[in-house]
């Protein structure tokens, strides 16, 4: 029979930790999907080899460096370039030609993580001859990932997959022309980040800071509960120009939310909506 597979967190322990995080640091995770959150905390306790919940809690509460590590690990930072090729095809063929008619294009990547989607977008804009009149705002709750966005350096081992994604999504050039290989890394061209604006932003507590023509928030709100999803969607609504676009992940929806009637999906397959009123 199986030995005890590690520390089993109780719900009240999770609650205790969430209250600590608000009291001590102002990080509010109480409206994150509880099942995911519990799993990620258990995973971290296991990975960092704590012997008890009490020991883990003490570390989170008394070590600021560890807190930063905690936030990095609890928020999910799995992302890819040109992930979901159908989505990028829709951007290229349906969204960018419309954005091109605006004199200035402001795009917000909310919850940008390490920036793979931001660089994918910059490549699309460059190929559509729109990069020079665009601004890409990339925000995340987590300051350390923004440093990675600024660097624009990704593992070289991923480039084969990204290159295939790029071609399947309608890319016509040689994908390797966008980066320089240095040892095991691919450093993307500085030109792609000339229009980049980076900032920390917390979708739980921060408000609108500009008006955009396109907001992307893909596979970020799946970690939120329904009330927090509603708050974030309201924030995106308030931050979009009329006829601007909102892009979510392939298994996300704005059905059954307070903004449902203010948006129209651009086609039945892709998760891109247009603000109608």
């Amino acid at each position, binding site marked *: *029979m*199986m030995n005890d*597979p590690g520390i*089993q967190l109780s719900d009240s322990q999770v609650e205790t930790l969430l209250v600590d995080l608000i009291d001590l640091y102002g990080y509010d995770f109480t409206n994150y*999907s*509880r*099942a*995911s959150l*519990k*799993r*990620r905390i258990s995973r971290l306790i296991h990975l960092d080899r704590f012997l008890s919940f009490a020991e883990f809690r003490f570390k989170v509460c008394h070590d600021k460096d560890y807190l930063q590590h905690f936030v990095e690990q609890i928020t*999910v930072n*799995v992302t890819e370039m040109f992930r979901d090729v159908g989505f990028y095809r829709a951007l290229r063929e349906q969204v960018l030609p419309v954005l091109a008619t605006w004199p200035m294009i402001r795009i917000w990547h909310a919850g940008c993580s390490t920036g793979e989607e931001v660089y994918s977008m910059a490549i699309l804009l460059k190929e559509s001859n729109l990069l020079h009149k665009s601004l890409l705002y990339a925000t995340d709750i987590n300051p350390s990932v923004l440093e990675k966005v600024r660097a624009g350096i990704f593992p070289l081992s991923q480039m084969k997959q990204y290159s295939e994604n790029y071609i399947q999504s309608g890319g016509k050039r040689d994908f390797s022309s966008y980066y320089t290989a240095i040892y095991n890394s691919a450093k993307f061209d500085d030109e792609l980040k000339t229009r980049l604006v980076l900032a920390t932003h917390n979708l739980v507590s921060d408000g609108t800071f500009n008006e955009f023509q396109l907001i992307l928030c893909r*596979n970020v*709100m*799946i*970690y939120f*509960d*329904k009330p927090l*999803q509603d708050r974030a969607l309201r924030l995106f609504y308030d931050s979009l120009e009329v006829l601007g676009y909102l892009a979510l*992940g*392939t*298994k*996300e*929806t704005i059905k059954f939310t307070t903004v449902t009637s203010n948006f129209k999906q651009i086609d039945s397959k892709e998760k891109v909506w247009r603000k109608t009123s």
Partner: protein
Amino acid sequence: MDEKGKSKLLVIGGSAGSLSMVLHILPLLRAEMYLSVIIVFHRKQATEDTLVDLLAGRTTYRVKEAEDKDELLPGVVYVAPPEYHVLVEKDRSLSLDISEKVNYSRPSIDVTFESASDAYGESLICLLLSGANADGVRGLWVAKQAGAFIVVQDPASAEFPMMPQEAVDKVPVDMLLHENNLSTLMNFFF
């Protein structure tokens, strides 16, 4: 008890060689069972639409791919989408998650078994089928502690016995399933 409290949840986890057992089970599901079903298969991206269609043809239950925050309703089969973990929340809705693979798998059977046991406790039935890795075994163990009913495909009848055999070796199993005792399992759902 309210209607929601009465419903049960069946989570089926399977890898290589598990489809045929699912195709035998689906036609036996009845509306009176008041059952929600989640199917977690290890599979490649390209097969998603055809799998839902294939399963839908075998049952009177509605079959859909799981979407974020879907409410778990009786009479519905939710299929885990490729590249996402599916978690069950305490309010009996689903959350999707694209974090790291677990047991080299996304979706991972462990992830769904564990979170489902938190939400459903004794109203959960876990079924682990044929497969060639060890995903699902830890989840069965956790679900067993929470009072779930644990069913494992008889390794002798499984095309790939490794996954069910691991489960039988490591977890106290309530029932071994093969094609000839499916009706016994169905009785448990009423």
